[in-house]
């Protein structure tokens, strides 16, 4: 080889690989597509958040004085649909997953880069339809679209909203397909299944749900559209239809969708905890297989949303038992993280605070889920604020905490910049307090009997509602602070080394930000993941050796 004489210039990073609009909007680079998703879901988050702000303002007083009940119905529908389908479901998979899956397994890109770009366009098309539905007067069915209300009686923009969710569903399916195929076929030499980072295991399990559950939602929304437009009663009891069939089809998707939100979050936590505990992850295979177990069991528990819909007692008992079983793989993860922490040397940095917050809040969310899986308790608290509090502990306390933890953890890798650590720590703690103040009172409210989806409530519930609204304003602030300091960090040029946290994993072997094709040479993996040197263990080893 006589290549001497060519100057060994460093390759530009993926961010510097092109500056035109075209280089962004027609990019096939998984990292740029991740950035497109990051920008768009952040916008949707603030749309859904604005609706929540108005709801909490309205609920500060028992009367419906700020908005009418009709407007309130539209507010909680905006909040639910936007947050579920246009923020939470794409959040970790489409942003962090898109960015990290090829980097973590040592590939140049996902298996199907063009499908990846298409998935973003489908997502945006669906999102714009949903926003259009909101502008056209909103939807008042709730995010669950229960029939026959959504098909016959609702006098609102159900069709554009359902069409938007239908289309964005195909973006989920394409993302899931891409991840499954990439993990199967594009791993670097030596990257065996049990050397994969746990984030990959959980993303893989999530992708199975994307591919197998989303189409059922899609066909259900088609049926709703047909019934509404055509006037035939697929789910209308007066025309021989069965509204409970709708609920079965809807929850067959929407319960697994909960695991679409929380499984990737668990993957993020499994990356952050060993890094900041400077310790090898405890029980690697148990954590890996528990992701798959959660994905599989998640398909078998949808009936617990329907205990009051007239399921037979036997069916209800089976669904209750299966729902209890999901607690086992979830607890396996929590205990393994605990042992990893117990044996480690902990650095309390921003990502770690979010991860620790996740562990605590997810545990509360998970344990209250057991209350709801118990038939008798569920009859008492069904459709109350207890349910609202429970799933916000999973979706906000769990998924959003981990998402923000992941954003802070990989921010230096994604952007090449560092953010202000004191502000990071401050906002992580603020989020934890704001979150608990918002949602803990709702457990009490629900237990006392305050039902969900109402703009008015008996005056004796006001104190707890005011506490919750006060918490929500702190929570809102805790979302805005990172938006400010993370954006501000972009002003200065990239300055971070390839591995600022001393983390393991192939992504930390690339420059920050990585080059367009990730790796100059395909990396070769020779050992297990999470090879952290625990300073304590090293010290005690040295002491023993004398």
């Amino acid at each position, binding site marked *: 080889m006589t290549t001497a004489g060519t100057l060994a210039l460093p390759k530009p990073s993926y961010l510097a690989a092109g500056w035109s609009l075209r280089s962004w909007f027609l990019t096939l680079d998984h990292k740029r597509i991740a950035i497109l998703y990051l920008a768009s879901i952040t916008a949707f988050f603030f749309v859904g958040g604005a609706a929540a702000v108005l709801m909490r303002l309205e609920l500060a007083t028992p009367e419906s004085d700020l908005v009418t009940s009709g407007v309130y119905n539209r507010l909680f529908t905006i909040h639910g649909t936007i947050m579920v389908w246009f923020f939470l479901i794409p959040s970790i998979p489409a942003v962090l997953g898109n960015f990290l899956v090829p980097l973590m397994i040592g590939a140049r890109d996902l298996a199907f880069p063009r499908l990846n770009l298409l998935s973003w366009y489908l997502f945006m098309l669906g999102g714009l339809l949903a926003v259009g539905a909101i502008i056209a007067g909103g939807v008042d069915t709730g995010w669950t679209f229960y029939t026959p209300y959504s098909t016959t009686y609702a006098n609102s923009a159900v069709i554009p909203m359902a069409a938007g969710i239908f289309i964005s569903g195909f973006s989920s399916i394409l993302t899931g397909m*891409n991840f*499954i*195929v990439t993990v199967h076929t594009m791993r670097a030499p030596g990257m065996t299944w049990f050397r994969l980072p746990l984030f990959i295991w959980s993303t893989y399990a999530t992708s199975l749900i994307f591919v197998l559950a989303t189409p059922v939602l899609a066909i259900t929304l088609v*049926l709703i559209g047909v019934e509404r437009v055509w*006037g035939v009663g697929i789910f209308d009891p007066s*025309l021989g239809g069965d509204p409970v*069939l709708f609920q079965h089809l809807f929850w067959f998707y929407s319960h697994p969708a909960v695991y679409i939100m929380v499984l990737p979050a668990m993957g993020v936590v499994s990356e952050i905890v060993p890094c900041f505990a400077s310790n090898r992850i405890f029980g690697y295979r148990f954590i890996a297989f528990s992701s798959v177990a959660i994905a599989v069991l998640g398909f078998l528990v949808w009936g617990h949303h329907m205990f009051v819909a007239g399921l037979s007692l036997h069916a209800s008992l089976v669904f209750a038992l299966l729902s209890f079983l999901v607690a086992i793989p979830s607890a396996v993860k929590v205990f393994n993280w605990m042992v990893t922490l117990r044996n480690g040397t902990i650095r309390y940095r921003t990502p770690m605070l979010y991860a620790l917050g996740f562990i605590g809040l997810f545990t509360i969310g998970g344990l209250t889920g057991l209350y709801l899986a118990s038939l008798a308790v569920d009859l008492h608290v069904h459709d109350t604020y207890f349910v609202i509090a429970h799933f916000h502990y999973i979706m906000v306390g769990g998924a959003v905490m981990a998402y923000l933890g992941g954003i802070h953890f990989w921010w230096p890798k994604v952007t090449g910049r560092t953010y202000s650590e004191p502000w990071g720590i401050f906002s992580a703690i603020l989020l934890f307090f704001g979150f608990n103040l918002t949602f803990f009172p709702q457990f009490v409210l629900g237990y006392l009997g305050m039902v969900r989806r109402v703009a008015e409530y008996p005056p004796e519930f006001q104190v707890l509602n005011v506490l919750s609204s006060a918490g929500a304003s702190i929570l809102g602030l805790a979302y805005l602070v990172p938006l400010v300091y993370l954006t501000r960090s972009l002003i200065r040029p990239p300055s971070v080394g390839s591995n600022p946290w001393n983390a393991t994993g192939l992504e930390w072997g690339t420059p920050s930000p990585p080059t367009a094709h990730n790796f100059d040479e395909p990396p070769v993996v020779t050992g297990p993941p999470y090879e952290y040197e625990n300073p304590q263990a090293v010290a005690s080893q040295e002491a023993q050796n004398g």
Partner: protein
Amino acid sequence: MAEAPLAHQFDDIVQQREAAGLGMWTFLATEVLFFGGLFTAYTVYRMSYPDAFREACHHLYMWLGAVNTAVLLTSSWTMALAVRAIATTDRRSGISSLLWTAALGTLFLLIKGVEYYLDLREQLVPGAGFRTAWSVDPSHAQMYFVLYFIMTGLHAVHMLVGVGAVLVMAFLVWRDSQVTRRANAVEMTGLYWHFVDIVWIFLFPLLYLVA
């Protein structure tokens, strides 16, 4: 043997082919669940209204459905021939088999269209003009036809996509100087085609033969 151009993200052609195959199978798994929701609805309502389904089924043109089943099975055969021919660099018979497949698919859609027209004439289309002369509750018979039109309609949409894809493949094979570069793409199209065919194999007995 010439191979398809290697996309930048793959190390070698074997990896690229594996990815394409696994991607298509994953997509078909999605499709199974997509139709699965409809099959579930069908099962629930057939168990609720067995008499209405039996009576409504008598109004379909069973022989048109049977002819269409034969047409579609034949098209799967020509599709398999096309995959085989192109893998063995036989351009002429590859293209002609693809064109036969597209033609049979179009014939299927035409027959289906005629059938829809006959259904419309006999007031079997659900809605305000739905026929009233039933010995069972008309809304139960209507449920059968709602499912019939959605299931066969969705299948027809898949057929339309399939015919388009097969024609694109025929064009690409015709244009390319080395046919084997397209072998993998044709094989993937074939997988999709056979899947759509199999869906019909389930639809035909469930809708036409339940009586």
